[in-house]
């Protein structure tokens, strides 16, 4: 994701205040493994949205789920 952020036809999703929709694959205490629409997996901090469960959709910004 970091690489994509610096391509001329891409954009920095963090600088753009953009949230990325992801699906939860594995839920742990304060983190979850999530997958984005391109199939890429991410470690996401989930403590700002409370507990999450498998297949739940979350909005992720800068590695942190905000909704």
């Amino acid at each position, binding site marked *: 994701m970091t690489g994509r952020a*610096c391509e001329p036809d891409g954009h*920095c999703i963090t600088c753009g205040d953009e949230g990325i929709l992801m699906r939860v694959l594995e839920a742990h205490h304060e983190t979850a493994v999530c997958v984005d629409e391109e199939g890429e997996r991410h470690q996401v*901090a989930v403590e*700002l949205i409370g507990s999450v469960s498998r297949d739940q959709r979350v909005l992720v*910004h800068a590695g942190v789920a905000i909704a």
Partner: protein
Amino acid sequence: MKFVDEFRNAQLGQALSGEILTELEPGRHYKVMEVCGGHTHSIYKYGIDDLLPENVELVHGPGCPVCVIPMGRVDDGIAVARNEGVIFTCFGDMLRVPGSENTLLDAKAQGADIRMVYSPLDALRIARENPDREVVFFAIGFETTAPSTALTLRRAKAEGISNFSCVCNHVTIVPPLRALLESPDLRLDGFIGPGHVCTVVGARPFEFIPLDYGRPVVISGFEPLDILQSILMILRQLSNGRCEVENQYTRVVPHEGNLRALEVMAEVFELRPHFEWRGLGFISQSALRLSDAYRDFDAEERFQVPGVRVADPKACQCGEVLKGVIKPWECKVFGTACTPEHAIGTCMVSPEGACAAYYNFGRYAREKEAV
């Protein structure tokens, strides 16, 4: 992917475009500002401008965090990065933002250890892995990003990580909007509200716009149909004589925002008395600094920074673009002296900036029109 594909449906887009036509008052010119840089990017990427009638004009607002960073703050970051033993971390777009003499990328080429991160949590991981080095995170962003920085600092404090600090440039969206609404040279009919900022702060902070200034606001998602529907909702409010904050992005934005995120932000940050915005000048209580409880993590306390105010280059008209007074291509240096590869102004650096978005997605169409 569910909640994505259905919001990119071309037939529905054309239908919405047709509905927009039915809400227009003949002979009236409408100016609608999209506040968020993410919306600007989507508008150009998906050609939403081309689906609107000529008398509906989209004005690009100040909601690109990179674009509003003044040069002096970049100089401060570079000064910190050049300290021996420092690992300086920042988001990708920050690397190419011009300071008075250099960019962070130039400083990196000259030997500073500057690393790009996707999340402040990555910067904290680097600090854990390098206990003998000082790791500094250059924090930028509106209320969407501020919770990530706050959460990172709360974790750093809980873990007792003392080699981590932060140059805090987080800004808040409401004060510049108020400044724009007070600006005599700008006439706007309505606002497309910043969907992801509202995920955190909710809808309430925007209620002053219809109440005090009589302009409708529609909080919008970022897919093409989200934006078209939001424009339709604004025009419908105007044609019905209504004026309120509506939420188009209900699948994500709760009215009250994210209370956990607001709580961690209140713990870690406090308002700065004033902060300089590129093109907009100093705006009171428009930015965040670390609270007393987190002062130990403030890189501006830990390192010496120049803290000098630097005037923008004379040729650059980012200020007028940010205020929506001129279109990107009306700037004297757009596409000639100022390009994404060699940006003079910040609006050309970040793809969320109106100039870069137009350069990347709209320039060729305009050239064709001219022929």
